[in-house]
């Protein structure tokens, strides 16, 4: 049966286009409907709360006020929390990217048998759950923890180091927490890069660094973009890790807004902070996406390389 040449039959073409569009819509509609009804709508209810008035000792009065947003945006304390969240998220993301790359490359080039095992191992930390994982890190870094105990017993230090409750600790642990996601995302992309390309480059005299910079890095860019975006969003919303590792001295947005809701029942302020957090996260991600895709990638859709 000969397939119709679409250009030769314009009327049929329109009909096909409509049928195709219908098919497309029906394919995406379950997910779209579910998300719109069960996620976006409920969220809007909560956004509405952010315009209510908080009454200490009582709860919430229905109102249309901007006082919660004003309170947040005009207070240097809260703005510092927001800034800190962004800075730590960016740093952790970059750190995770840098550290994940060697592991991803290694994993990508590994033989099948070991690869499965290593992938399971990389995923293990995710299975612990954020709370227990953070407690594991506390057992490593606290003053009575493993690291201090080892350093003390080797005489490297005379009194325990204060590692926890510092921005450094939060950044490092956050990077460790998100790294499995980064490793697996990068690995998938690097795997698709033909090893022949690297060999060819080397044969032409490129050093390892040049191979990386000129061959691997550019070709892995879609994965880098996807991985860093995902990890950045996870970091911005991180709760258990900054709460337990950073404590009150390194307050980040998610713990701060949870605290408003949990500790003082200030849903309006908590809601306003959530809106600000979501807005900033989206804006930063969109900006980042645009800059990177313009610089490195022609288009995301397509890519018909087998």
């Amino acid at each position, binding site marked *: 049966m000969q397939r119709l040449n679409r250009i030769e039959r314009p009327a049929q073409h329109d009909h096909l286009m409509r049928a195709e569009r219908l098919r497309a819509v029906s394919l995406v509609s379950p997910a779209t409907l579910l998300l719109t009804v069960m996620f976006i709508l409920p969220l809007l209810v909560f956004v509405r709360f952010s315009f209510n008035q908080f009454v*200490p000792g*009582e*709860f919430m009065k229905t109102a249309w006020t901007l006082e919660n947003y004003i309170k947040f945006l005009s207070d240097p304390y809260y703005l510092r929390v927001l800034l800190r969240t962004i800075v730590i998220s960016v740093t952790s993301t970059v750190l995770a990217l840098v550290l994940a790359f060697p592991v991803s490359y290694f994993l990508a080039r590994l033989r099948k048998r070991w690869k499965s095992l290593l992938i399971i191992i990389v995923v293990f930390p995710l299975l612990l759950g954020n709370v227990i994982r953070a407690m594991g890190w506390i057992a490593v870094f606290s*003053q009575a923890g493993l690291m201090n105990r080892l350093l003390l017993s080797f005489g490297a230090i005379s009194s325990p180091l204060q590692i926890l409750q510092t921005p450094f600790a939060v950044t490092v642990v956050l990077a460790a927490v998100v790294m499995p996601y980064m490793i697996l995302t990068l690995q998938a992309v690097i795997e698709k890069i033909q090893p022949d390309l690297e060999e060819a480059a080397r044969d032409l005299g490129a050093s390892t660094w040049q191979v990386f910079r000129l061959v691997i890095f550019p070709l892995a860019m879609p994965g880098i973009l996807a991985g860093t975006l995902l990890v950045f969003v996870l970091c911005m919303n991180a709760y258990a890790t900054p709460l337990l590792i950073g*404590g*009150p*001295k390194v*307050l980040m947005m998610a713990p701060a807004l949870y605290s408003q809701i*949990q500790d003082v029942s200030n849903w309006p302020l908590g809601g306003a902070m959530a809106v600000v957090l979501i807005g900033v996260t989206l804006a930063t991600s969109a900006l980042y996406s645009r800059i990177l895709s313009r610089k490195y990638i022609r288009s995301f859709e397509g890519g018909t390389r087998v």
Partner: protein
Amino acid sequence: MDRKVWLVLGAVFAYLLSFTPCDRGASAQSPGQGASGKVIVGTFGGDTVKVLSETVDPVLAKVAPNVKIVYAIGMNTERMTKMRVEKDGASSFDIIHVNDRDMQILINEGLLLKLDEAKIPNAKKLFPSFRNDHYIPYNFSANVILYNKNKVSPVPTSWEVLWDPKYKGKIGIQTNLWTDHMYIAALLEGTAYQNNWDAGWNRMLKLTEQELKPFSSMETLGIALQTGEVWLTVTRRARAVQWAAEGGATLGNVLPKEGVYPVTFCAAIPKNAKNVDGAHAYLNALLDQKPQIGFAEVMGYTPTVSGIPLSEKVQSSIGFTDEEMKRIKPIDLIYVGKNDPKWKEQWDKKIISR
């Protein structure tokens, strides 16, 4: 390879099909006249629900055999949220467990049922300061100074010890105890019972000169005390005794001469609860001897009703002497509720983030 995938998919599907949501639908509650049917109790997990199910259930079974207790465990926040969200319909709880401060807030919001004294005869035995119309305090503790016996000398007698420069850098602070610390400062200022805790704020600021060590989890504070990283902290006697018993540094606790307020754990009935009779029966059972002793022995919280025979060992460790009881005076929860958010903000900004 394809076949294996189909087998797995088929197995998963069959499993899912065998598992019908009907099994899990919200079971209908048998209409209860008198105390019968389901009583859904929203409470804390861990040891709390363990003690409750082991001590309250048998007591209730004896007097109201048709009542079935279902424990819905969660944190305070979930219960408070559900109470507020559900207020226009039927509540998903028949009993909720929250602390006294949150109880007052719920009363302010009009979410609690006024209790029918006739259905809770045991309430007559409550100590006078614990009696009220809307909730039943079923055990309590109080803040004490927990100190390292080997490092802190002489034995502290006053809250002032927290400001003693001798212990700079050795004072641990639980970050969620802002109310408790504001109270102490106001108490030392003499204005705690005149509803003016703001007068103690300067004293609180002075406390930061002690290079406080904040702890957001009790576990890490416990370990810090036991390893000697910190020597002093403010905590409930129940917790203090528990930490002291866990080994490590020798820890003692003292209730300072200026006094303290009781921290009570309470249970109440939502205004729109479904099984009001069953709920009242549950509250009565809470004040029975078995649960009261159970909480004291397992969790270190003291009975709120008189006439509970605690063993010598338990009484001497977690109990309060008559003399100490004279120094435990309740605070105005309405005043506290109104000012708590403000104090928390000050605390976060100026005290524990330094």
